[in-house]
């Protein structure tokens, strides 16, 4: 197990290196620079700015310096907002994005599993059709449309929730629901089909033959097995929640990281682009690792072993 995790961490570092390199060069290939704007900047100022931020150095010097700084955990100063450190921007925005993301994941997994289980237990009866309808709506309606609908009906018309902003828990509900709707629907579909498979399996019949009641069979026997595909989906779900949050944060005017990520790209704010990209990559890679470890706890048939030597 320890060996396995060690090995995975090495892979993560390799993956990060590739991500950093690819982002660095793609960014430089894109036309424009942080100081290009509608007003043309006099060449003298342009030059002095380039010199200040080291943009006049050859690319390999810039790249080398950048790698060294990143390893030290310093993403540099924003090129657009003066005196703003990228690290500070992340430290400010990330807790907000994380709260929103975790809330959305909680809703997606909790509601998704619940809806899927109910649909499976009432297979081909009205609750099943109702749940399937909810799932289809969830999958086919994009999160930004869902966000606008929620804002219009629940916030503007009904006045139950604030329309936008970030000043407390109540502000997080609508954005979290909007962010969760698609993955929730997907998890519901996933749970339904695997639950149906499990409830028709022999061991469920055997559990019934032991005299265990229907609901205990479902929760003690079938659910854990039915959740295995859902756990597999958690890693892509994390990615989905992260990318989805860019849009949702924009719609609900939430001062999270997503805003910095998007605006840094349009601004060609090199240091912030790199900082946020690397940070998100780390989160995602760790999430994937965490899911794999979680998987081994839920399914005893999966043993985590490092390398090829562990073929016992």
């Amino acid at each position, binding site marked *: 197990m320890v060996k396995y995790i060690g090995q995975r961490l090495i892979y993560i570092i390799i993956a990060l290196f590739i991500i950093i390199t690819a982002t660095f060069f793609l960014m430089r290939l894109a036309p424009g620079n942080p100081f290009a704007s509608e007003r043309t900047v006099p060449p003298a100022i342009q030059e002095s700015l380039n010199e200040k931020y080291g943009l006049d150095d050859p690319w390999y010097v810039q790249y080398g310096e950048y790698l060294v700084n990143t390893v030290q955990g310093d993403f540099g100063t924003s090129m657009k907002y003066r005196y703003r450190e990228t690290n500070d921007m992340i430290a400010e925005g990330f807790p907000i994005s994380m709260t929103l993301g975790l809330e959305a994941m909680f809703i997606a997994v909790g509601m998704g599993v619940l809806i899927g289980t109910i649909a499976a237990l009432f297979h081909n009866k009205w609750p099943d059709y109702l749940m399937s309808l909810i799932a289809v709506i969830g999958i086919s309606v994009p999160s930004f449309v869902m966000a606008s609908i929620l804002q219009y009906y629940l916030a503007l018309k009904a006045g139950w929730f604030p329309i936008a902003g970030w000043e407390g828990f109540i502000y997080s509900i609508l954005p979290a629901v909007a962010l969760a709707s698609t993955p929730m629907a997907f998890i519901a579909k996933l749970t339904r089909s695997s639950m149906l498979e499990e409830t028709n399996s022999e061991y469920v019949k*055997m559990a019934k033959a032991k*005299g265990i009641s229907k609901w205990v069979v479902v929760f003690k026997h079938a659910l854990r097995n039915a959740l295995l595909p859902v756990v597999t989906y958690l890693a892509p779900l994390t990615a989905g929640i992260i990318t989805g949050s860019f849009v949702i944060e924009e719609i609900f005017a939430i001062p999270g990281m997503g805003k910095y990520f998007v605006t840094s790209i349009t601004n060609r704010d090199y240091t912030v682009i790199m900082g946020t990209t690397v940070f998100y990559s780390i989160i995602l890679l760790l999430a994937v690792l965490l899911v794999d470890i979680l998987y081994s706890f*839920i399914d005893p048939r999966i043993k985590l072993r490092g390398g090829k030597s562990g073929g016992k």
Partner: protein
Amino acid sequence: MNEPVLQMKDLHVDFSTYAGTVNAVRGVSFDVYKGETLAIVGESGSGKSVTNQAIMKLLPQPPAIYSSGEILFDGKNLLDLSEKQMEKVRGKDISMIFQDPMTSLNPTMKIGKQITEVMLKHQKISKNDAKKRALELMKMVGIPMPERRLNQYPHEFSGGMRQRVVIAIALAADPKLLIADEPTTALDVTIQAQILDVMKEIQKSSQTSIIFITHDLGVVANVADRVAVMYAGEIVEVGTVEDIFYNPQHPYTWGLLGSMPDLNEDRDQRLRTIEGSPPDLTDPPKGDAFAPRNPYAMKIDYEQNPPMFKVNDQHFAKTWRLHPDAPETEIPDIIKNRYLQYTGGDN
């Protein structure tokens, strides 16, 4: 003979499907006595499993419909019991051994928990005592190192060991009746023999009655006291093992026995089969369901379903052959020869 543990009286089970109603079980009656093993044999689709899952009421309703009949157990008709009442019967009074041990255990639950679960459900017993009893059971069914095995998962067991676990689970609450639905079909022959030995030993020590469903006549000869032969949802012949093997009366039983491979036979002899296939039970035939495949069929076989004719006190067969007015038909040579082989000469 002692009193019956279970009495099935004229059970009818139908399935409603898109193609129409399938009469899967058409009036099955039998008794199971204390401490005996009743084998139910028949080809696939003859209704053996449905009959026995009906005892546990494990058939999902719909599509299954228990249209008529009685299943008397302990003086109660199981078909009248509610789902809640059935939960108290399942696993406690009647338990079941399933066919495929590779799929009948929960893959993500420890073996120990799967065994103790039954006891904790049905008996007033502490977790610790249940664990002790589980260890005893595992020893009894021949699982080595039970202390260590208790905390393992099914995938760490071989097929034969898993079936022993399934048997241990079935026995955990001291059931009065054990239904074994082809418990050895999914196992290879040497393991089969071991499992059968385990079951025989258990029966000797606990006096549990066993219904043993199989299509392997070799297994029947090995374990059964009495045999019921099923065809197209009906019992066509029932009797002691000796009656069925040495003095079979129904042409279908002849066919079954005749199709058994025989080691003493010439190797060039092709395996015998029963020509044709079982009838479609969405529209069961008017007469004897076996008539179209029966080389000895008479006109009446196509017109009227025969009743059970008595051969002796325990031996009954459902064929017009046994009617006093029926012309004499000889038992086929192959069956007679086999009888001679087993009784006379070379033992």
